[in-house]
């Protein structure tokens, strides 16, 4: 199998509100930074793939506007997923594995500030039985949290500890109202901030990667799996799709030293740690994770980027990166990255 590595990663400063810039104005500096790291122009990249959702900012075909920031003329080979950018990375990885490309630019962005994110996310739910009830994203995560507490898997004090760890990177969520319930049993500290932001990575195949990055983060395996869509069919206290994706990505073949988990809610980190069999020896979410910054559609790609960046810097030799999509960890992607 061809070897593929993440050779560069960049992200914006994720902020609660970016009303002063358009999506492309927010994204473009990140694209310039990531391409600058490897000294390539957009025209020298073989394949470009992005992830975003028009529903967040309410802007139709916003990804075509965002493409203005790439410089897509003469025409480039380009694709887009209406999913977190981690799935755009997966598509780009496959493109390189098939020999269709040697380099790929992957980016993702999300501006949640123009809308009411909790309500916007209800539009991704089953349109027959669930979406007409408008169950918001925090409420659905709270059902999962209560299921975990009932199963004896976690407790509110343990969730508080998870939230505190996630907040080491930032202090914005440790305000006086952090203990208030948003939807019980989830308190404000258990919920992600609302963030506008963007992220980008560059992928390269074996021969190309070594010339672009001193210590490439080699993708040893990657897989994504989905649960049954009805919440009432699933065991919300477990994540068999994460476990299966991890197994197929080779995550259990050898211990990892680092894990970047895409857990927007504290209770979901508990589920993921169990599904991925991560013990206390593993450095989980040194970036702060989604509880520190949650630019929806980019948060999962950032987990891959943060894990790769630690390998680039020599801080990790074997890292696991996870991304999720949908309510209550509906769909899960796991990648294993290595430094040599």
């Amino acid at each position, binding site marked *: 199998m061809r070897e593929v590595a993440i050779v560069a990663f960049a992200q914006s400063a994720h902020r609660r509100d970016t009303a*002063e810039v358009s999506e492309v104005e927010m994204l473009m500096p990140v694209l310039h930074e990531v391409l600058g790291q490897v000294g390539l122009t957009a025209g020298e990249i073989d394949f470009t793939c992005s992830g975003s959702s028009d529903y967040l900012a309410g802007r139709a075909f916003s990804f075509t506007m965002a493409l*203005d920031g790439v410089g897509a003329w003469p025409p480039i080979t380009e694709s887009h997923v209406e999913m977190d950018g981690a799935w755009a990375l997966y598509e780009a990885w496959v493109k390189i594995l098939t020999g269709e490309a040697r380099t790929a630019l992957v980016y993702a962005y999300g501006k949640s500030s*123009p809308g009411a994110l909790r309500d916007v996310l209800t539009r991704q739910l089953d349109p027959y039985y669930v979406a007409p009830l408008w169950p918001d994203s925090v409420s659905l995560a*709270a059902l999962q949290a209560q299921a975990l507490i009932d199963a004896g898997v976690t407790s509110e004090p343990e969730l508080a500890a998870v939230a505190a760890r996630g907040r080491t990177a930032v202090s914005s969520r440790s305000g006086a109202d952090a203990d208030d319930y948003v939807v019980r049993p989830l308190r404000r500290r258990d919920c992600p901030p609302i963030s506008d932001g963007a992220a980008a990575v560059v992928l390269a195949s074996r021969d190309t990667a070594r010339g672009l990055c001193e210590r490439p983060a080699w993708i040893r395996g990657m897989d994504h799996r989905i649960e049954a869509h009805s919440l009432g069919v699933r065991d919300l206290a477990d994540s068999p799709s994460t476990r299966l994706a991890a197994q197929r990505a080779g995550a259990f073949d050898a211990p990892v030293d680092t894990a970047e988990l895409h857990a927007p809610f504290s209770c979901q980190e508990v589920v993921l740690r169990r599904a991925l069999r991560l013990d206390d020896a593993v450095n989980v979410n040194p970036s702060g994770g989604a509880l520190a910054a949650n630019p929806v559609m980019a948060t999962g790609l950032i987990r891959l980027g943060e894990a790769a960046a630690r390998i680039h810097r020599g801080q990790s030799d074997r890292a696991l990166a996870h991304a999720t999509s949908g309510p209550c960890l509906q769909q899960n992607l796991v990648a294993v990255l290595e430094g040599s």
Partner: protein
Amino acid sequence: MSPAPAPEVLRAPLVVEFPFTRSLGPVQSAFLTGLRERSVLGVRCHDGRVLVPPVEYDPVTAEEIRELVEVAATGTVTTWAWNPSPRPHQPLDTPFAWALVTLDGADTAILHALDAPGPEAVRTGMRVRIRWAATRTGAITDIACFEPYDGAPGGEPRPFQGEFADPVSGIVVPARLDYTYSPGRAQSRFLAALADHRTIGERCPSCQKVYVPPRGACPTCGVATAGQTEVGPRGTVTTYCVVNIKAQNLDIEVPYVYAHIALDGADLALHGRIGGIPYDQVRMGLRVAPVWTEGGRYPDHYRPTGEPDADYDSYKELL
């Protein structure tokens, strides 16, 4: 050209509405019609499990499943979450619990609201029953919510052989999302100048093209447009079409002409309506100027200036 100042952030309400009309499969149709008739149907999988709400295909094996059974309107809470601040469109407008409820006779849980006085009145394992909506149409909202129940449990699922008169075959799901729209730096500068009857383009520092209206990036070079430059007000029709169908909510008599107009100094054509000339006399190369209405923040339309037509070579790159 002048350096671009940081513009005032413009904000405007933006409402996105999208009523989806969805057709139903046979199992979904039976379930939603059943709710209208105050009856809850499930579907039995080949392994014997009863799914409520029912689906057309087994979520594990993907086998087609069609064996309908009737289950009770009473059940047990399997997990819950207390929602102190109901959001728009949710089933109840007073604080309530979201709950997954396994109805008596079912093996899976259904999501809905549970009306209870407070979180201390809710627990996993508590018994509840359906409170039916007064008006029912064949939709999940025919269940108004669940409510606490201390009566006898329902029995085993009963085979459902019958058919409903006048089954629902589809649902219309309205949706509305409210946004606060902000157009960003480049478009804010453009809109602010336009309200002042000036048209501002932005120049690409790399290829030197002037974009009108500017969107903040040169799509060819992928760099930020750097400086403002005033263009127009006059321009040239590069191409056009004759509109024969009246648009909804638009008070313009048809036929009329909609055109691409290259403003003098711009390297990209914008579009606008052409007025002040019979529609069948509009032509490529026609010279036009904007017409502003009292208090208008943008040109109402463009009219001929009376100048000689522009030479084709002068705008052929802008087609």
